[in-house]
């Protein structure tokens, strides 16, 4: 395996992990927050009460666990791949989010929104065909 194909392979594996666990986490997060109800306002007491209820909800913690798994995969892939490559490439998860929202949360998704998700995916495909790492740079 060449260095370049090895780079693509490990990048692909980690991005696949990211786009698998993140949509599940997001779906659980949405389900949990619907159980909490709408944010009452910006007053400190309102915010405290709102987030206290959120962080004592089991569904939210399942979501946080899945999103932590996503975050670790994300950290690892960012150790070698460009941010401007990883970020759009991982957005393929939006298709899965839409599917999970439709079939698990029973959300109605209009045709226009499905078209939007499809266009996002085509954009992701275009980004995914570029090299994950460009020459050294860093200014800060």
């Amino acid at each position: 395996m060449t260095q370049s194909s090895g780079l693509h392979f490990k990048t692909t594996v980690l991005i696949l992990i990211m786009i698998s666990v993140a949509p599940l986490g997001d779906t659980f997060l949405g389900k949990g927050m619907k159980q909490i109800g709408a944010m009452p306002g910006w007053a400190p007491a309102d915010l405290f009460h709102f987030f206290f209820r959120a962080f004592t909800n089991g569904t939210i913690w399942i979501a946080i666990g899945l999103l932590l798994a996503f975050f670790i995969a994300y950290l690892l892939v960012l150790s070698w791949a460009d941010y401007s490559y990883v970020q759009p490439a991982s957005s393929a998860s939006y298709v899965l989010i839409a599917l999970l929202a439709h079939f698990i949360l029973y959300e109605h998704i209009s045709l226009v929104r499905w078209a939007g998700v499809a266009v996002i995916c085509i954009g992701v495909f275009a980004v995914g065909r570029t090299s994950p790492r460009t020459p050294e740079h860093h200014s800060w």
Partner: protein
Amino acid sequence: MVTQVVLYMMVVFVGTGGELFVSRAMKTIGEVTDFRPSAIARVVGRAFMLPRMWMGISLMALAFFALLGMLSVSKVSFVFPSTALSYAAGALGGKIFLREKVTPQRWFGVLLVCIGVVLVFVGKS
């Protein structure tokens, strides 16, 4: 409505700022080549010693709270695709702050993502 717009802006721009800090921190650590759990734990431990990582995590935490606020009133199938606007902010931030070479093809992909986000907004009703 104003609350939703403020929360949306926080998710997109504060979240992207946080991810740029995290990306910069991880580039400081260097490429991960050992994927054994103990090696991964060491890498994560080293990353959490960096101030940039904490700056990034703080901003991402703030964006996460805003996301929870959005999810409490809006559909999952709207919230997540709509926040894909952060991809445009991310590509721009990657180019400006991380000096990444964003190729025309990558810009084209980002443009498509933005068009998709607009369609998701239009299809909200």
